[in-house]
């Protein structure tokens, strides 16, 4: 086992990317995630593994560099924060459409507009419902600790290549900026050129040989019937992802009468609220979402049969609550609580809201 380190979430992502055998990082600095590229530049991963790091001229250029390199069969990533992720949406839509694997990290800050650099979870809709144009989905994983920031990198790449689809790690300013203990995984070697040709030679842009037809990376189908067929294929893939890749952590849900649904740093805050509630004799459990897409609909629906109510806690004006309500489907009350615009709710506020909106209501 490798040693315990004290790292920021942003640094952990960067180190984990090197260790995951990532081939290239393309990014543009923006608070509160600039430590990702700063860490990579200090570490000189090109000397360690051959991983390329490039500071692009914009978030837009960075995501299209990712598109190019992903289309060339490489394991590549970018990271940004909310306004930068908005800029990347064009490229993300192309990457999803062209069915390319890549990792996108969003360390969310408060919006809309230039907003604030303080933590937020108001990019839930953008991440899970599309963000860019067209019918597509990202696999979205939400780490709640620095350890998960590290662990989810390799996991994301695996999912990205398994389904040939972009994966987003949706973090926020708290998880990105805080330091915690972290144990890094072992170094995985980068794939060799031959391994890439062998594994991805049937679709990637690696140079057309006489042995195969040319590979084309495109999202254009001028014939709408062909485009519909392509969309149907994408939807089938997303259904498969919903079937196979739901991830969550149920904390004290077995005896719980009330469930707080939360992800990321809100789930951390809510755990303190849970402890305070249980000290008062209120049986509260936390249903922590790890995959935001796919959303654990069935699991929440099943919980709704045996609890008295749900409180969706998120640092937004109410986004994830819509998915929670769809899953609960009216069986019991499901309400929203959250501070937003860069304000982090306190454990006390969350508990008060639970008592007022769900238990008292």
């Amino acid at each position, binding site marked *: 086992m490798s040693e315990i380190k*004290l790292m920021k979430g942003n640094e952990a992502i960067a180190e984990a990317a090197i260790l995951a055998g990532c081939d290239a990082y393309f990014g543009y600095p923006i608070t509160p995630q600039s430590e990702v590229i700063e860490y990579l530049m200090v570490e000189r991963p090109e000397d360690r593994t051959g991983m390329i790091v490039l500071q692009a001229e914009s978030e837009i250029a960075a995501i299209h560099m990712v598109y190019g390199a992903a289309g060339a069969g490489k394991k590549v990533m970018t990271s940004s924060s909310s306004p930068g992720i908005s800029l990347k949406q064009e490229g993300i839509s192309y990457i999803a459409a062209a069915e390319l694997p890549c990792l996108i990290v969003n360390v969310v800050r408060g919006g809309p507009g230039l907003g604030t650099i303080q933590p937020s979870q108001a990019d839930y809709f953008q991440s899970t419902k599309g963000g860019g144009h067209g019918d597509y989905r990202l696999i979205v994983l939400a780490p709640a600790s620095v350890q998960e920031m590290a662990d989810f990198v390799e996991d994301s790449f695996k999912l990205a290549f398994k389904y040939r689809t972009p994966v987003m790690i949706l973090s926020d300013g*708290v998880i990105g900026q805080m330091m915690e*203990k972290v144990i890094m995984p072992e170094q995985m070697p980068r794939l060799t050129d031959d391994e890439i040709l062998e594994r991805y030679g049937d679709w990637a842009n690696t140079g057309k040989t006489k042995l195969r037809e040319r590979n084309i990376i495109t999202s254009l189908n001028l014939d709408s019937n062909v485009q519909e067929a392509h969309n149907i294929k994408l939807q089938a893939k997303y259904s498969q992802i919903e079937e196979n890749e739901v991830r969550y952590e149920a904390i004290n849900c077995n005896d719980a009468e009330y469930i707080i649904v939360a992800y990321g740093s809100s789930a*951390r805050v*809510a755990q*303190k609220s849970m402890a305070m509630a249980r000290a008062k004799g209120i049986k509260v459990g936390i249903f922590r979402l790890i995959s935001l897409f796919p959303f654990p609909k069935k699991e929440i629906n099943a919980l709704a049969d045996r609890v008295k109510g749900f409180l969706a806690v998120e640092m937004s004006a109410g986004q994830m609550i819509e998915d929670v309500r769809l899953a609960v489907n009216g069986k019991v009350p499901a309400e929203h609580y959250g501070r937003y615009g860069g304000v982090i709710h306190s*454990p006390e506020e969350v508990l008060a809201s639970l008592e007022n909106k769900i238990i008292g209501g």
Partner: protein
Amino acid sequence: MTEEMIIAGFGGQGVLSMGKILAYSGIMQDQEVSWMPSYGPEMRGGTANVTVIVSDERISSPVLTNFDTAIILNQQSMDKFENTVKPGGVLLYDPNGILKHPTRTDIKIYTIDGAKLASEMGNPKIFNMIVLGAFMQVKPIVKLENVIRGLKKSLPERHHKLIPLNEDAITMGMKNVVAK
């Protein structure tokens, strides 16, 4: 044991690094730790603060509104955090530059003349270690040996020669903390 603390002062006073050393010391004792800084424009000479939690258990919220201990190093932070100390908790501050001293009677208040002592020791940079020593005297949650081990981990090799000086500063802080 869970110790939830806030360290707050001016950027440049070593607030964040003091928190980092505490967190490292906790790791050396096999404890769970979290270090959550205020970030952004505050970094540039304005106020800076960091929430540090050291615990025997898995840490839930890294962001808190009430603290077991507040270490306060300027007036703005005093104004902001005096009332966030839990009843029975500790408020440790450097009186240098403080005009409105804390008035709460339900908490334990200590002072450490860190800035003055640091200048007497001829190195203003060890100010934060003097304050850390004062805290360790008041609440011995981390052992000195683990702080030294934490320092070795967190400092680059080329700065290891400064560790004895830091140790002296911690001792200085331990000796000079005053209960109010």
